[in-house]
């Protein structure tokens, strides 16, 4: 039987999950940031196709067209993969809520009065841990 988790363990899990969510959000943001490049390539495709149709020897334009089209396909596939991250995000968020409940961080506001210092103490400890970790990463 695994040993019962302490509040400290739950806090550690919470922190670890927060980092995973942050990482996921960064991935999703990165996938959306390719929109500008897709637009630019789209218009390059339109220009190249027009030139290829009227050129006597369109081979160079066709090669350029294929290169641009392959890149757009790659970027759109990245975006498609990012859409599926939403499910992963929801699942992590649920786990985070669950941990929050275990740590009693989601009490109704009317009941929170006497517990507030207790909660603030934990949050402040978490904040210092985050700061320490960030400092270690710099």
């Amino acid at each position, binding site marked *: 039987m695994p040993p019962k988790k302490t509040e400290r363990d739950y806090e550690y899990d919470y922190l670890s999950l927060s980092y995973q969510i942050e990482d996921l959000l960064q991935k999703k943001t990165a996938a959306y940031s390719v929109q500008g490049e897709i637009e630019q390539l789209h*218009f390059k*495709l*339109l220009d190249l*196709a027009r030139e290829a149709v009227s050129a006597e020897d369109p*081979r160079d334009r*066709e090669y350029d067209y*294929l290169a641009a089209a392959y890149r757009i396909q790659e970027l759109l596939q990245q975006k*498609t993969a990012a859409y599926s991250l939403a499910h992963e995000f929801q699942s992590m968020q649920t786990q985070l809520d669950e941990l929050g409940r275990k740590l009693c961080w989601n009490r109704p506001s009317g009941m929170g009065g006497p517990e507030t210092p207790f909660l603030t103490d934990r949050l402040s400890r978490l904040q210092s841990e985050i700061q320490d970790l960030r400092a270690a990463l710099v």
Partner: protein
Amino acid sequence: MPKAVWTRSESEQRNLEYNYLAMSYQITGLIEQRGEERKLIGALAEVVKEVELYLAAESGPSERASLAQLLEQAAGEATSFLRLSLAVSEYTDQLIRMQLELAGLGGLLGFERRS
């Protein structure tokens, strides 16, 4: 003039991007096929050239003449067939039609030309 702005759900956006991707695959397939056809014509022309060189170097005059004529005829027919196939393959029309569809999808996705 104020620009028309509308919003669409993520699933609509996804569907449009999917259609764009599918159309893009069709167009690249068409262009790749065209490239293959060109390669085939080039290869045939190369065969004709090699046969001509061989005949010029190794055979007697009468053999060379008849063999050359036969091979030239065969290669010429193959090349003509391929050229005809390229000419009637509606490649250009297909490319223009697909490209217009792609441009339309780009418009629906809100792509804007930036100077």
